[in-house]
C-alpha cells in the first residue's frame, strides 16, 4: 500500500538470518552469530522506502508460537499485539532457512494462522544450493498463497528485492491455509475458545486458535495462568478437550504437529528435493568435537589458547601505546606553562587515560576470539559437550553460552540467559555469571601480574605470567562452579528441562564482521572507560593534590647521594600525597583493608573501582603520578614495585598482596551495570542485593585468608 508507514516484524526459527536481514534493511549493527539464541530481545530500526519510513522489528528466534522461554514469549506477544500494548505488526517477514524448509515451515503455518499479512523469505539459498537442496519457490508460493522469495541475506540485490516485495505488498491477510485440524482437534479448539479464552482472557481474537492449540498440547496449564483466579476452570476445560481428542484415538500433544507436518509435506513434496546425504565435513568435525573424551579436552584447550594469546600477543601493542602516552605526557608538560592546568592534564587526565587505554589490545584480542567462536558454530557444540558437567553442578548445558559471553562482559551474558527455560537454572546462572573474568578485570590482572609475577618460564616454555593469568580465569570459573553447586542445594524448583539444542552447520566466520566487532568493542571500551576516567581522575587529582602541605625539613633535606635523593623526592611527594584529602580519606578506610594487605592508595583505587573495575588502574596511575617527580618516564608497574613505606622502608606491595588484590577483584561485585541488569532480568531488588552481598563478602574473606595465611607461612 502506498504512503503508509508500516510496522514490520522479522520472524523465524533461531539462526535463520533474521538479524542479518534486519541489519541490511535498517543499516544498524545488531549482533549476528552462528548459533541459536543470539538475539534475545526485540530490536527496532527504520527503513526508508520511497520516502515512507517503516518500522522494522527484529525478534528473537523461535521454533513455534508455543512459547516456553522469555525470548520466545517476546516473539509471540509481539505477533499477537500483546507486547507492551503495541499493535500487531502490519506485516510479518518470515525468514526461513532454505536448507531446512520443512521444519521452518512449521512456524510459518502458525504465523499465517494469526491472519497477519506475510512475506516468506527462503534465506541461505547459497547453502541450499551447495548442498544440492532444490526448493521450488513457485510451488510453495502457490500452496501458501503468499509471496515467496529465495534470497541470500548478504546479497545487496536480494535485499533490494525484499524491499520491493514490502513496497508492493497488498497487506491483505493470507487466505486460510489448507491445513485442517481433523474433527476432534477442531472441536477441542472451539470448546476452549468459547468456554475459556473468550470469557476469561483478554487475548485478541486472532490469537484464539493458536492459544487453544497451545493449551491442548501442553499438559500443565501454562505458567501464565498460575495466578489466574479461575485457574481450576481452565484446567477442567482443557482436560475435557484433551479427553475428547484421546477418545478419537489421537495423542492431544501431537495432533496439531502431525496435521501441520502433513500439510507441509504436501507443500514441499516434489517442491524441494535433496540429494541423499553422504557424510559431510560437518559430520566429520562433529564426530570429534562432540566426542565424549576429545570434546571437553578441545573445549579447555580452546579456552587456554585464547587466554594465552590475549596475554602474550597483545604485549607489543601495549608497549607501543605506553610509549605514546609517555611522550604525550612529556610533550604537554613541556609545552604548557607550569601550573595547575599543566598538572591537571598531565597527572590527572593523561595519566588516568593511559592507565586504562593501554589494555585496549587485550580487550580487542578477547573480542576477536569470542567473535570467531560465535561465528563458526562452535558455541552450540560447547554447550552440548559441557551439558553433562553443567547438570551435575546445578547449571544447564545452555548456561555455557552466557557464561562464555561473560568473559567479555557480564551484562550481555546475563541477557543471554533468557534462552534457559527453567527459572531456577536461569537464576543460578545469572547469580554466578559475574565470577567469569570479564574484560574489565583484565587491566587489573595484567598490571599486577606484569609487576609482581616474575617473567620466567616454567618447564622451559610456559611463561609464568601467562600461567598466572590463566590461573585467574580458572579461579573465576571454579568459583562460579562452586557457587552454583551450593546454590542448587538451597534453591531448586525442580523445573530443570533436559538438554536439547539445534547444532547449526559450521560456517567460516565472516571476517568483516569479526573485525568490525573487535574495533567496535574496542571503541566502546575506550569511550566508556574514558568518560568515567576523565571525570574521576579530575576529581581525584584535585583530592590528591590539595591541601598543599609543607614538607617537614627532615624529609625534604635528605643527604644528596643519587639513590637517596630519589628516595627523598619520593618521600617528600608521598608525604604531601598522604596529607591530601584523598590521602586522609584513604587512611580513614585503611584499617578495614589492611588485613588484606592493601594500603590506603589501593583503598582509594578500590573505592573508585566500584564505578567500574578498570577505573582502578587509572586511579592508581593518577595517584602515583601526583606523587612523583616531573618528567618521569617510569611505568606504573615500576612505581608500584618501588613504592616503599616511608616509615619502615618496607615495600608496600609484595607478590602476596598483589595476589590478594587479584583475588579480591576476581570475586567482588564491583559493577553497577551488572546489578542494574540483574534487577531488570529478575524483576526484583532481592537478587541484585543478594548478589552484591554474597560476592563482596566472599571476596573479602578469600583475600583475608590468602593474605594472612601467606604471612603466617612466611611469604
Amino acid at each position, binding site marked *: 500500500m502506498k504512503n503508509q508507514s508500516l510496522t514490520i516484524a522479522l520472524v523465524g526459527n533461531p539462526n535463520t538470518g533474521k538479524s542479518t536481514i534486519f541489519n541490511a534493511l535498517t543499516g544498524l549493527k545488531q549482533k549476528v552469530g552462528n548459533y541459536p539464541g543470539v538475539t534475545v530481545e526485540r530490536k527496532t530500526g527504520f527503513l526508508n522506502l520511497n520516502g515512507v519510513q517503516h518500522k522494522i522489528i527484529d525478534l528473537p528466534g523461535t521454533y513455534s508460537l508455543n512459547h516456553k522461554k522469555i525470548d520466545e514469549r517476546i516473539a509471540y506477544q509481539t505477533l499477537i499485539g500483546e507486547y507492551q500494548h503495541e499493535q500487531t505488526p502490519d506485516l510479518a517477514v518470515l525468514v526461513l532457512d532454505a536448507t531446512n524448509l*520443512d521444519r521452518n515451515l512449521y512456524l510459518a503455518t502458525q504465523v499465517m494462522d494469526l491472519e497477519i499479512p506475510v512475506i516468506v523469505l527462503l534465506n541461505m539459498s547459497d547453502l541450499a544450493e551447495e548442498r544440492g537442496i532444490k526448493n521450488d519457490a513457485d510451488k510453495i508460493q502457490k500452496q501458501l498463497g503468499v509471496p515467496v522469495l529465495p534470497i541470500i541475506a548478504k546479497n545487496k540485490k536480494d535485499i533490494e528485492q525484499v524491499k520491493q516485495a514490502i513496497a508492493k505488498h497488498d497487506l491483505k491477510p493470507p487466505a486460510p491455509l489448507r491445513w485442517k485440524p481433523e474433527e476432534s482437534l477442531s472441536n477441542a479448539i472451539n470448546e476452549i475458545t468459547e468456554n475459556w479464552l473468550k470469557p476469561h482472557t483478554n487475548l485478541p481474537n486472532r490469537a484464539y486458535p493458536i492459544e487453544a492449540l497451545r493449551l491442548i498440547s501442553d499438559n500443565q496449564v501454562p505458567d501464565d495462568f498460575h495466578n489466574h483466579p479461575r485457574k481450576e476452570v481452565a484446567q477442567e476445560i482443557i482436560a475435557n478437550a484433551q479427553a475428547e481428542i484421546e477418545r478419537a484415538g489421537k495423542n492431544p500433544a501431537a495432533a496439531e504437529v502431525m496435521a501441520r507436518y502433513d500439510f507441509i509435506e504436501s507443500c514441499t513434496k516434489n517442491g524441494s528435493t535433496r540429494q541423499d546425504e553422504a557424510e559431510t565435513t560437518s559430520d566429520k568435525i562433529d564426530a570429534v568435537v*562432540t566426542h565424549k*573424551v576429545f570434546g571437553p579436552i578441545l573445549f579447555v584447550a580452546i579456552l587456554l589458547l585464547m587466554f594465552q594469546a590475549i596475554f602474550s600477543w597483545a604485549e607489543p601493542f601495549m608497549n607501543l601505546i605506553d610509549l605514546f602516552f609517555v611522550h604525550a605526557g612529556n610533550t604537554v608538560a613541556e609545552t604548557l606553562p607550569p601550573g595547575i592546568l599543566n598538572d591537571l592534564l598531565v597527572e590527572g587526565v593523561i595519566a588516568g587515560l593511559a592507565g586504562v587505554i593501554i589494555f585496549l589490545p587485550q580487550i580487542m584480542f578477547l573480542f576477536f576470539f569470542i567473535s570467531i567462536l560465535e561465528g563458526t558454530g562452535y558455541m552450540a557444540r560447547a554447550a552440548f559437550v559441557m551439558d553433562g558437567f553443567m547438570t551435575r553442578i546445578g547449571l544447564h548445558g545452555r548456561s555455557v553460552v552466557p557464561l562464555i559471553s561473560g568473559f567479555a562482559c557480564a551484562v550481555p551474558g546475563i541477557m543471554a540467559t533468557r534462552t534457559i527455560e527453567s527459572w531456577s537454572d536461569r537464576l543460578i546462572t545469572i547469580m554466578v555469571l559475574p565470577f567469569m573474568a570479564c574484560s574489565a578485570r583484565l587491566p587489573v590482572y595484567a598490571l599486577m601480574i606484569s609487576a609482581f609475577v616474575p617473567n620466567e618460564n616454567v618447564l622451559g616454555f610456559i611463561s609464568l605470567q601467562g600461567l598466572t593469568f590463566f590461573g585467574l580465569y580458572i579461579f573465576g570459573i571454579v568459583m562460579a562452579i562452586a557457587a552454583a553447586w551450593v546454590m542448587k542445594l538451597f534453591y531448586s524448583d525442580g523445573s530443570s528441562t533436559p538438554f536439547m539444542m539445534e547444532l547449526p552447520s559450521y560456517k567460516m566466520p565472516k571476517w568483516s564482521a569479526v573485525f568490525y566487532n573487535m574495533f567496535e568493542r574496542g571503541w566502546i571500551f575506550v569511550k566508556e572507560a574514558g568518560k568515567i576516567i576523565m571525570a574521576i581522575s579530575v576529581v581525584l587529582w584535585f583530592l590528591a593534590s590539595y591541601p598543599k602541605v609543607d614538607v617537614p625539613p627532615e624529609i625534604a633535606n635528605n643527604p644528596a647521594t643519587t639513590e637517596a635523593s630519589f628516595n627523598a623526592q619520593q618521600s617528600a611527594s608521598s608525604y604531601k600525597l598522604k596529607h591530601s584529602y584523598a590521602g586522609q580519606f584513604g587512611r580513614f578506610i585503611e584499617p578495614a583493608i589492611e588485613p588484606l594487605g592493601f594500603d590506603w592508595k589501593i583503598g582509594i583505587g578500590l573505592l573508585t573501582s566500584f564505578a567500574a573495575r578498570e577505573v582502578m588502574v587509572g586511579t592508581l596511575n593518577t595517584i602515583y603520578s601526583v606523587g612523583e617527580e616531573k618528567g618521569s618516564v617510569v611505568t606504573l608497574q615500576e612505581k608500584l614495585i618501588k613504592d616503599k613505606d616511608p616509615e619502615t622502608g618496607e615495600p608496600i606491595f609484595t607478590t602476596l598482596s598483589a595476589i590478594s588484590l587479584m583475588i579480591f577483584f576476581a570475586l567482588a561485585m564491583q559493577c553497577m551495570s551488572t546489578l542494574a541488569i540483574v534487577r531488570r532480568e529478575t524483576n526484583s531488588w532481592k537478587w541484585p542485593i543478594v548478589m552484591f552481598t554474597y560476592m563482596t563478602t566472599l571476596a573479602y574473606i578469600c583475600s583475608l585468608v590468602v593474605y594472612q595465611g601467606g604471612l603466617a607461612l612466611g611469604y
Partner: protein
Amino acid sequence: MYPLNTTNAGEKVFIKCLGCNCQDACRLREMGCVEGIKGKIISNNSNVVLQVGDTRLAISKKLARSILVSLN
C-alpha cells in the same frame, strides 16, 4: 524398538515414539523430530547427536533414553 541412547554412530533409524514428558516431546516435534521420521546418528557418547531431515539435534542422555527408535 530401542531407546535412542543405545544406538551407534552412523546408524539410520526411524523415530517411533517420544516417551518423554509432554513438554519435551512437544519441543522435539517442533524442532522436526516427529514420530515416523527417518534419522541418522552422528555421534553417541551417552549424549546423542541426531540428524533428522536437515536438522542436527543435540540431545542429552536422559532425554535420549526416552526416545524409542527402530533400525531400518
